């Protein structure tokens, strides 16, 4: 097996898992929005905002790929095992953390949306609370950046 295979497996995990997480997160929030709209259609702006929030982890996965490929220029055919394993590790980190943080962030957002639908004025506070699971995806992206910087 060539080292580039391992590197691209890492990239696949990075983009795939993080994106999947965003799918779960945004869908959970979107489903809650449909239910909330039946009770309180005026809050659509808040629903939209909270549903869009879990979408950022997929973006981080993509940004991680961009970092590895364009910024650090690591994805070349003659990549060494050392660099490929670094890319794989970064990919695993961002992908796994992105998947789980987005999944659960979507649940926080969905709960907030349901509360808004029931008439409680909690949009701002839900937004604040939803930011906390995302921190770890951000940290994973920063770690990917540091891994890339360390191996070039």
């Amino acid at each position, binding site marked *: 097996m060539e080292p580039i295979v391992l590197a691209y497996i890492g990239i696949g995990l990075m983009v795939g898992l993080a994106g999947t997480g965003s799918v779960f997160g945004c869908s959970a929030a979107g489903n809650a929005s449909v239910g909330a709209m039946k009770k309180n259609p005026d809050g659509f702006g808040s629903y939209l905002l909270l549903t869009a929030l879990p979408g950022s982890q997929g*973006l981080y996965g*993509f940004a991680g790929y*961009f970092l590895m490929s364009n910024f650090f220029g690591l994805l070349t055919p003659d990549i060494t095992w050392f660099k490929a394993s670094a890319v794989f590790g970064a990919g695993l980190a961002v992908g796994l953390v992105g998947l789980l943080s987005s999944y659960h962030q979507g649940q926080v957002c969905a709960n907030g949306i349901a509360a808004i639908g029931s008439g409680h004025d909690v949009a701002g506070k839900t937004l604040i609370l939803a930011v906390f699971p995302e921190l770890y995806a*951000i940290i994973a992206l920063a770690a990917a*950046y540091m891994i890339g910087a360390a191996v070039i």
Partner: protein
Amino acid sequence: MIVPMMKYSFLVYHADYKAFLKELKQMGVLHVQVKKQEATPEMQDLLRAYNDLLKTIRSLSVRGKDKVVSGEGPRFADGAAVWQRIREIEAELEQKQQQIGSLEKEAQLLVPWGDFSPERLEDLKQSGLYFRFLVCRDKYFDPAWEQEHYLQKVSAEGGFTCFVLLQREAGASLPEWEGVDETLLPARSLSDLRKEQKALEAEVSRLNEELDSLATHQLGQLEAYAADLKSELDEANVLHQTQSEVEDHVRLIEGWVPQPKMAGLNAELDRRSILYVASRPTDDDKVPVQLKNNRFARVFESIGDLYELPNHKELDLVPFFAPFYMLFFGFSLGDAGYGLIILLAAIFMKYKVPKMRSILTLAQWLGLVTVVFGALTGTFFGIDLIEADIAWLDKWKAYMIDTDKLFNLALILGMIHILFGMVLKVVNVSITKGFAYSYSTIGWLLLIVGSGLAYGLRELGAVSESVGTYVQNGVLIASGSLILLFNDPRRSIVMNFLSGLWDVYGMVTGLVGDLLSYIRLFALGVSSAILGFVFNELAMSMRPDNVIFGPLVMIIILLVGHGMTLFMAGLGAFVHPIRLTFVEFYKNAGFTGGGKRYTPFAEKSLD
């Protein structure tokens, strides 16, 4: 800082009490002491009515925002009458909507059969002709039936075939056809139903127009009524908190007045010959809290409000966390371009919406610091200025901080934040309990700063090894004794030692965790730069070669991408420094909280 308060007690003859309360309200400085937490049932009803009214006002103001209603609208005696009419309209609207709904259900039954008169059916029944209305799925319908019976297909839509069977006997049985059901149709024709529906819909739109007119013209009256209700609620609460003494002849009311307002209040009370007693609060009193800060720190009070007010004895931390919060925001967002957008938007909005002055001033400060940090880290809309080949920036590049140094900077800022918090804790503990209780914290400060200095000086070679070790040992002994032996002046040395050991364990694990928490600033700052960079690259690589579409697509990608990044990174930069303030800083500053806001019993001023 927290405004000091004085406790006032008033003794008033019962017959004069109502007039006294009115005068008290006019003076508007007394925060009535809450002795009975449970509200009376009347107060609860009043509160419920007030909250319902607020909801109605909110929904009406949304209604009336874009509507243009000509004319003056009907006159109402007062806000209560307006509200009554609104509730009537809403009840009527609900009823009519229900009626429209049930009419629609009936109409839907008739739609496949078309418009025919039920009277004609009745006439035909008299003549011995009975119509049966039958429905079945298309696949079950057999055209052969038309030959065998007097049958007419009426319609075939949506997978269902509707047909009519003519029979000569009343109540005759239906043929044994699979999948065929009989529908019982309403006794009215489709056109009658539609006419009634239209009439109801006209009613509904008339009622809605009336609501729009009320929303446009009578909103002020409603708001005035709401203010009246609130005033009534306040007065009811004050009466509730009043105590009856001397067999109900005398009323006693107690409360708090800010010290700066004392002189003015005393003069007024003397002028009106009201009996009062002013005293200092005791240690057990729950004194309300009013904050007073300079212009800079005042805008950060809204952030402090997200958590808790300090209790009246301790230090107000808002002016102390304000500069750090600003710094951390700038660090986390860390892009000069985004900071510029925030700054310019805040300046622009300040002219358009003067009501939001305080929040917009906060936004201006945060935007300014972000521009500074963006310039320091060399990030402008995701463009890495350190790597970029811009001629006039070369001499500034020496001042720019790159990513490795940024990591260390985050930790250094964190250490400074924590140490500053601990210094404040010394002050806090000295104010609340006494200087002797702060020895433990002083010991820790001495240990951290002293050891750090000793280590640093030794490394830099400023002092020799032996002097360094001597200083280090001195620091250890001094701080150790403060932490382990003198931490509580009331306890014995042995208890202090044991408690001190436990404190050491808590502090060591706590401090390490707290310090590492500041790494989030670095992570946030780096991620916003990365996302900005990604969108720049995306815009460059995805632009088509067309002269017109190329720049257009590029601009769209840049706008959407940077807009999204600004929002996400801005949100993170707002929330995480808040967490660092309320968790790490407040904890190390020994913040207790639990203060209640100072809300005087006063006339509500007109906004």
